[in-house]
């Protein structure tokens, strides 16, 4: 499985499905996807982590690699459905304090509409 980007809410929000493993082998690809999105002016992103079983530090870094540029353009990165292992990493690195985390993609998408 690879990264899949879907437009929702008439293209104003993107949902990005993350593969089972997010490691040094795949994190550069994720960074490139995020770079392309911000270059296209897409600043509202939901990362769907429901299938992600394993993540290393490079994967974690890739997730937040465009967070400043997105937020400074009235957008954000929101995380949906992290599994226990990933959730522990987000807590350990305190990313859970700065990135909003939701149970599922629908909740994360709706949070942008509030």
């Amino acid at each position, binding site marked *: 499985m690879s990264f899949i980007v879907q437009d929702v809410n008439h293209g104003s929000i993107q949902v990005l499905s993350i593969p089972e493993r997010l490691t040094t082998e795949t994190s550069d690809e994720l960074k490139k996807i995020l770079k392309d999105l911000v270059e296209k002016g897409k600043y509202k992103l939901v990362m769907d982590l429901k299938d992600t079983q394993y993540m*290393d530090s490079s994967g974690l*870094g890739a997730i937040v690699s465009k967070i400043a540029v997105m937020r400074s353009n009235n957008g954000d990165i929101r995380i949906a459905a992290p599994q226990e292992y990933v959730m522990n990493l987000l807590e350990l690195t*305190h990313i859970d304090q700065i990135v909003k985390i939701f149970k599922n993609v629908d909740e994360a998408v709706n949070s942008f509409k509030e």
Partner: protein
Amino acid sequence: MSPNSANNDHRNFHYLQPDYKRPVFDIPARYKEDILKKLRSLYGKECSDFCAQETERIMKVYYAHKTPQMIEWEKSFDPAHRFTEKDVILITYGDLIRSEGEKPLQTMKELATKYLEGVFNTIHILPFFPYSSDRGFAVMDFEEVDPRLGNWDDILELKSEFKLMFDGVFNHVSSKSKWFQEFLNQNPEYIDFFTVFSTKSEISPDYLKIIVRPRTSELLSSFYTLNGKRLVWTTFSPDQIDLNYHNPHVLLKMIEILLTYVRRGADIIRMDAVTYLWEELGTSCVHLSQTHTIIKLFRTILNAVAPHVALITETNVPHTDNIRYFGNGYDEAQMVYNFALPPLVLHAFQNENAERLTEWAATLKPFSEQATFFNFLDSHDGIGVMAVKGILSAEEIEMMALRVLEHGGYISYKADGDGKVSPYEFNITWFSAINNEDAEEPVEIQVKRYIASRATALVLMGVPGIYLHGLLGSKNDAELVIEEGQTRSINRKNLNKLELFKSLYNPESTTYQVTSHLIRLIQIRSNQCAFHPNASQRVLHVSPSIFSVLRTATHNQETILSLINVTHKTFHLKLNVETHNLNGKSWHDLIEDETYQVRNRMLNLTLSPYQILWLKNTT
């Protein structure tokens, strides 16, 4: 040779055993009175008389360890020149560099003598005592060297070339320490060494929420003792048990340890987490007056028996609270960590705009000729942001935090006391904070940007300090964060000696480029009395792109105008010397060895991206 010089071999300054054949030290009356007064303010009249007698005894015991060489050397010690432009402090763990079969402190000595002599004159060896967690800051035995690092002889060997800075981790001890174990055993001697409660309800919610702490963990940690379950005060973690300074025996123990460190070679004592020393329910429990009194007491004791030893306070708190640790400039810490500097420099380079840094730096004033700032950008901890609350807006701090995340770093939070949390420090190496690994730009420009950022800490009044990973330009080690389970590990990677030495001698490596540039800057700085900590300082508002400071030596009026381009663009600067009140027609750049002449009242300068100019007035 000057007593303030670091070029003395100070290994023979103390005996291992006291010499009681000599007359016992006669403590001057003014010190005795001062000590008694301070002890009375802490413990009242009845208790303080005993404490004063005991303090005097400890001081006399210490003095009996001093060798005649030291006593003679001290006679010409001048506290106003305790620190000079030669003082640059290297901050390192004792075991940051490792080599199989070698004691890490000996490996450190090898690096220091081969590579750092004449560059740094002081080494701050982070806690080198046996410990149970927090990379040394949960001390199990204050008076022993961790055998994994070496022994006291290895520490003493470093004194042949360097002054030494030791940590006084006086706020707390390890839960595995003998002191705490004896508390668990309910040994009467240790029963009041800690702040103990039977139930959580003994602290009202109103009191609890106003206590300021740098962590989000529970304040009270539960332990089973011989007499049942007890809750103890733990500001930092359940393994770091706060000492109860309401008990004078705790203070007396710490005075003994303070002077033990002096005997063992400390020239500077870093008072770790000193903000939290004294707890008092109903207050914020940070920087209370009793805490200041204890630091002042330590200063008095050192002034009396070891005046060459300085205290430095480590207080990651708002700038105005931080500088209160100078006291009146003569009676408390000789140095304070300049905590506002790192986040403001980072802000300048993140935004390519030095206005906020310039505005703040212009407010810095000397406290006295005996007190100065410790200008650091990085250390074993993160980049503290508490000091810039009130200088930068919450939105600006948040944007900095987001950029730190983008650069592969992490953010640590603290409890605000109102149930909320806010950023406490950024966990990232200084090189990674300043440069983005993902940016498609040449290494050369990253090195220039990095050196420019480091130059800010070299030009401001004070004593500069550089963490070893900062000297080397190390990048984040995010994987170690996951391995060790704490975000501060990102900046604490251990290095292999052979690999490090290879990098240090390889002109292609970033390590070589960073280190050689930085060492050159330090060497230039060390020969300029305009960079003496007491040299006057005037911050110039020349452009948001430029951070500019004018330093003038007090005794010979030597002047250096420092200009640092904080942007990636070439900047043409026309400086009106009359408007900026600059005397001198000819200015020589100490870095590029070029001379600039003033023509028609204007100094025309071109600064390439991230260029540093150190212009010395030569007319």
